[in-house]
């Protein structure tokens, strides 16, 4: 499945380049203001950044932040839910005006879309189950165990570049999951010994599973998170960046972080 998605993204890239040559340089910002609404993609399956509440409505750190950004742009906010893998292609293909879904800056992604200024900075963490008897004092120690990670994430990239490519971690000992919580299930079942993930959702996971504990946390791969914007659209980027800086200066984003990340 993952391979097919990669192939699809490659084909989309080719398509985007072909179509991109012909398109005229009008800003998506004009389109948003004319329509009076902004169409924003998210993958609402990544608590606490974006998920559904008990009533089935989207909620979370990114969701509330985007609602405030749209309010300050003076336009209505239209959410489009899509799996994480599809979001960048949808912005590149003009299907969405922007995407917010705990995106990290990534050189590959930057070739087909743009990134806003970072609106928050997160850390990575290693989590184990209570049965774990080993020790992890430095991130490289994880290479001595069976490791799980969400496929296609920056953590996957960090593990692949720093542990697998260097020969520290045999490829067979790295399990890639479509979703973090599937990996958490395997961690509880003992199929993997260490799970690497984004520190904030990992904390939420640990809070819900008393059997799990964090053994290491620090900035390895993740760092800043940004909004994904159409490629080369400077007017839209300027507007979004302006609002992000405004919200940071007012302390709005820190308040949101406390609300969603300190469960």
């Amino acid at each position, binding site marked *: *499945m993952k391979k*097919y*998605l990669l*192939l*699809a*993204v490659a*084909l*989309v890239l*080719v*398509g*985007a380049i072909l*179509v991109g040559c012909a398109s005229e340089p009008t800003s998506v910002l004009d389109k948003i203001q004319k329509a009076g609404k902004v169409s924003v*993609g998210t993958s*609402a*399956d*990544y*608590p606490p950044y974006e*998920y*559904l*509440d*008990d009533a*089935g409505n989207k909620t979370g750190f990114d969701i509330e932040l985007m609602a405030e950004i749209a309010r300050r742009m003076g336009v209505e906010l239209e959410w*489009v*839910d*899509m*799996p994480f*893998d*599809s979001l960048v*292609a*949808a912005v*590149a*293909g*003009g*299907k969405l005006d922007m995407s917010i879904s705990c995106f990290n800056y990534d050189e590959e992604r930057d070739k087909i879309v743009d990134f806003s200024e970072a609106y928050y900075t997160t850390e990575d963490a290693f989590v184990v189950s209570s049965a774990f008897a080993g020790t992890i004092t430095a991130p490289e120690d994880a290479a001595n165990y069976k490791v799980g990670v969400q496929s296609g994430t920056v953590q996957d990239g960090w593990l692949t570049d720093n542990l697998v490519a260097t020969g520290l971690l045999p490829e067979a000992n790295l399990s890639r999951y479509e*979703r973090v*919580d*599937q990996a958490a*299930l395997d961690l509880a079942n003992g199929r993997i010994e260490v799970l690497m993930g984004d520190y904030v959702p990992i904390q939420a996971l640990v809070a*819900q599973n008393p059997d799990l504990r964090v053994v290491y946390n620090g900035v390895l791969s993740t760092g800043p998170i940004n909004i994904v914007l159409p490629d080369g659209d400077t007017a839209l980027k300027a507007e979004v960046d302006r609002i992000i800086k405004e919200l940071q200066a007012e302390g709005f984003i820190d308040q949101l972080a406390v609300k969603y990340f300190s469960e």
Partner: protein
Amino acid sequence: MDFGQFLSYIGSGTVLTVGVTLIALPAGLLIGTLLALLYVYGGKVAARIMNLYSTVFRGIPPVVLLFILFFAVSKGINLSAFWAGSLSLGVVSSAYQMEIVRGAVLSVSGDQLMAARAVGLSRMQAIRNVVLPQAVRLAIPPWSNEAAIVIKDSSLVYALGVPEILRRAQLIGASSRQYLLAYLSAAVIYFLLVSLTTRLLNHLEHKLSIPSNP
């Protein structure tokens, strides 16, 4: 949350699952039947083209075609995720349905076509009134298999963000962290849909069967 709530949240995606199927399956049947007739009766060149069509679309994973149509081709035309998904699945299914119909048409003895021509029917009349009615009956069992596959393949439109059964199961699974329950609910709904469809088609097969030709 209990199983009932999961079922009702995920179940409300059934409308979209059924909708996608009801577009993809008939679209595939229409295209597939026309192409199958061209394949069998259209001469060597047509047969070669149809063979290529069948090979290409059976060789591409449906989800890849879905991405191409939604993200690359429909950049200019404003095709919604629902329609892009349904039509892609219809095209993929048409290749399989073409093979089903072709097989069924070829199973009707060629002598019948000759006999029909001999009593004065035109070629078109003979195909429409003699060959096709028998072929339809022969095609029902493999076609009900294809129907079940299209119902299940409709879950692929989740990749474009259509909130059908699978995507809703993922969403409620993530928010409640009860994945097993969420996917079990989805499995139950898919199972009911497929078994209901298969039963219906079995019934149809019996109703239409030719007594002398069991």
